[in-house]
């Protein structure tokens, strides 16, 4: 067999990658984790986490990240700050092309996560950083005493809208449907919060302003009625897209680009495993990401042993 640099390469340093790294390092595997920006992934943009067991006092995303990194590194996990540009994963030796070199490995765990989807409406790109935001924990304090719009109907949209009310005077929560997908407990809190005005059956059609956001145009999808909300900011939480652009084209994806795997996190390519938000899965939580990752590391270890035998 061709020489490899590592037995296992883990792509991505969110909760899934860090957990896979913890298991791999603790299992004394020759493993490395590549993270393109900073460990933590979407946890970094999460103000508080209240459904990850073991932390009854709401955990901050940065603190949880730091603890996961510390724990994985305590077992010797190597975390490198480098972006994976492309991968060649079909053969027995997996090639991972980084920004300035290519490494070879026997197995790969893809834990590259997901990123927020854009609305794709006029004004959105123009005003990123000047009123358009995808991260309330980063930007909410700039809207102290102001009025903002929030777009979306899932858990993230409702939870982050609630967080916005700690600063903003008023939050218009714009949802394209009548009913919310968000967890009931979050919906109840939003309904009870007098700073949140829910605008149902409505889409945002444009974001306007001169040098910064001044308003959001909306249209009711049932009545066709249009209007404009005077706001200083527009937060967008309409779902996520997979970070799978670097993946080998031979890898089986679902129609939305998420990587398909079985219950053992085994993908369509031997020696390639997946964990966390980038996987085609019905639920994307920290708890599910770390569960995926433990299984993926276990499957990868068995695969690597079979290759060495």
């Amino acid at each position, binding site marked *: 067999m061709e020489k490899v640099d590592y037995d296992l390469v883990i792509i991505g340093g969110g909760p899934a990658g860090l957990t896979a790294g913890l298991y791999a390092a603790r299992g004394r595997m020759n493993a490395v984790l590549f993270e393109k*920006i*900073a460990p*933590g992934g979407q946890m*970094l943009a999460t103000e508080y986490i209240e459904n990850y067991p073991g932390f009854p006092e709401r955990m901050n995303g940065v603190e949880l990240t730091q603890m996961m990194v510390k724990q994985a590194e305590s077992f010797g996990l190597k975390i490198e700050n480098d972006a994976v540009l492309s991968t060649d994963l079909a053969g027995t030796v997996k090639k991972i092309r980084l920004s300035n070199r290519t490494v070879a490995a026997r197995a790969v765990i893809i834990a590259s996560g997901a990123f927020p989807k854009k609305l794709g409406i006029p004004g959105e790109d123009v005003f*990123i*950083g000047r009123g358009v935001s995808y*991260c309330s924990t980063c930007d909410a304090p700039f809207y102290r005493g102001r009025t903002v719009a929030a777009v979306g109907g899932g858990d993230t949209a409702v939870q982050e809208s609630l967080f916005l009310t700690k600063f903003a005077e008023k939050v218009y929560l714009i949802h394209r449907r009548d009913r919310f997908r968000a967890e009931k407990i979050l919906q109840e809190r939003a309904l009870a919060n007098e700073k949140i005005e829910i605008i149902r059956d409505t889409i945002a059609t444009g974001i306007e302003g001169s040098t910064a956001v001044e308003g959001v145009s909306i249209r009711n999808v049932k009545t066709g009625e249009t209007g404009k909300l005077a706001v200083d900011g527009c937060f967008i939480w309409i779902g996520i897209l997979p970070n799978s652009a670097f993946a080998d084209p031979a890898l089986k994806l679902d129609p939305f680009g998420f990587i398909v795997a079985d219950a053992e996190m085994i993908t369509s390519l031997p020696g390639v495993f997946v964990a966390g938000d980038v996987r085609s899965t019905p639920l994307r939580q920290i708890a599910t990401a770390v569960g995926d990752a433990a299984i993926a590391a276990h499957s990868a270890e068995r695969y690597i042993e079979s290759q060495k035998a």
Partner: protein
Amino acid sequence: MAIGISEVGDGDFGTEVLQSDLPVLVDFWAPWCGPCRAIAPVVEELAGVYGGKVKFFKCNVDDNPVTPGKYGIKAIPTLIFFKGGNVSDQITGMVAKAKLEDKIKNLL
């Protein structure tokens, strides 16, 4: 020339940044911002490499409200690149090290 990152605020922004002979990178951040804390080590690492050719500053937006307002900053982390007192480039949100390094090289 000191290598590393210094603090800059509303009081000394003019002398340290706008009147600097060297190009300047200012990292606008706040303690409550997770992504800011996450990219700080990356900025520090690059300051170690390019510190002699580019001045690196951090500006805490909580303690210094005037400067972020002047540059229309409504999101952090925001990194602004200054050359000859003028804004030459800007990045909002988390950024990969390679991309940030490219932008720093463009400043030189």
